[in-house]
């Protein structure tokens, strides 16, 4: 059947990942200290639990920022070769902006941009 290759693939894949973890566990020197086991957070001591609730607004803002991100990704390559692509590409990019703009306008109308 020729299944050897696939079995070899699975075994090697498991061995390489598992082996690396086990190997580094075996050869690394272990000097346990209180400091070392602390959570690393920019060098500042951590306080309280990290399982807290935070405002969903942060999340919304991050997603809305994506609109401008995507816009840039598409507008820069288009602007570079705008003359060669001609009218069709121009119409297409206008449609693209129109759709993105509608999305932002919708979020605006729904008060997603209001910070209370």
């Amino acid at each position, binding site marked *: *059947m*020729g*299944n050897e*290759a*696939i079995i070899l*693939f699975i075994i090697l894949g498991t061995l390489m990942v598992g082996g690396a973890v086990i190997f580094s566990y075996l050869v690394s020197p272990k000097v346990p200290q209180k400091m070392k086991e602390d959570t690393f957070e920019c060098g500042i001591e951590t306080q309280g639990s990290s399982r807290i609730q935070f405002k969903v607004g942060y999340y919304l803002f991050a997603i809305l920022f994506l609109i401008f991100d995507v816009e840039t990704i598409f507008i820069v390559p288009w602007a570079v070769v705008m003359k060669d692509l001609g009218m*069709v590409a121009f119409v297409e990019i206008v449609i693209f902006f129109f*759709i993105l703009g*509608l999305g932002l*306008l*919708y979020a605006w*109308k729904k008060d997603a941009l209001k910070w209370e």
Partner: protein
Amino acid sequence: MDISNIIIMRNELSLIVVVLLLLMAEIFSSKNARYMLLNVATGLFALHTILGFLPTETGELFGGMYRSTPLIILMKNVLNIGVLVVLFQVQGWLKKPENNNRTLEFYLLTFSTLLGMSYMISAGDFLMLYLGLELATIPMATLAAYDVYRMKSTEAGIKLILLAALSSGIMLYGISLIYGTTGSLYFNEVMGNLQMNPLQILATVFFISGLGFKISLVPFHLWTADVYEGAPTNVVGYLSVVSKGASVFVLVAILFTVFKEMAPAWNPLLMVMAIATMVIGNLFAIRQQNLQRFLAFSSIAQAGFILLGMISGTTYGMATVIYFILVYVFSNLAAFGVVSIVKNATGKDNIDDYNGFYQTNPMLSMVMLLALFSLAGIPPLAGFFGKFFLFAAVAEQGMYWLVLIAVINTIVSLYYYLLVVKAIFVVRVDNPIEPIKGDLLARMGLVITVIGILIIGIYSPIFEWVQSVSFGL
């Protein structure tokens, strides 16, 4: 680039226009126009559905990434009709006071998922297929979590998005293996380069698993019951009919074309999955008390029957699969229509709550009876012919033992469908659900489904026409 033949993409273009119009209406209209806009949205979609039946050109676009054939157009029309029936049923739920600040969004999200499914069906390239799949999945999770004030609905949304992410990951892995072994993502180029080597078999299995989640085949079915129970009833109707139908169609079309050479690999796999799906779906359905969960497991069992048509691998088999989806759209939406009318009016969705339902609501009871008998496959309803053709396709290949298993499963399924019928018609109680009058559109939706159930089974040219556009291995 030449865009003169962009009209080939008419179905998607008109859907995009509808979505953008509704989005603008949502942004610029006043709050008072809210309920009027629901009818506008339904009307626009009805126009879009009718437009889909006008004759159109077929061909390829974007260098073969998008293609359109008579079969693909047929499938999109089936899905459009399914969505239209869902839209008819949905208003009673959207007009509840809890949904006050989000009514039109349901239409926006539904149409977005439908757009994704259309692109998925029309894809001529694995990348396009994947993009369509994601567009069909992500808004679906928000639809499942539409009743945010109910914990269970939120849970359904989160479960759906997590498992969709997992299944997408598995499927992407399969696609990456295909690209690695053939050097192309275009269906036409991949087709010639598959020759049953082990990595390609692995890719096929991953690909089937990824779509198996969407169709909720055993062993990828566990999300189904929880999501179907938690999500709003109308969304479940949409999820179990339209979403599942689109995925089934994509699976059968791709297995029969792109993975044609791999048939010796996927055929036994589908056989095992079909048997497991039928048996487990049926056994779990027997013990369900909640009607939405019950319909979830019944839809798992139905997915098992659909796989039978794919196993045969013939033109006839493919035609039976598509025909069965068409039948399933009407039968299942009729059942969900009744459940949603009752749930929106009373909030009850347990089978016990339906005791003595016939005493007070004879019309709704009759629709439910037709729907359940069609799902179970009792002649002369459409469901019988759907199942009969599926079994015939398998028998044609000489796999009589498989037909035997399927028939036994049909009989088991008859038992639990009849349990619901018994609750509605036979059991007498003192305080059954009070008489319910659904709104006009919801009743219209039920009428459409009933006509579908009665006509499709009897009017044979439909099947012949489906067969004329189908293809086999």
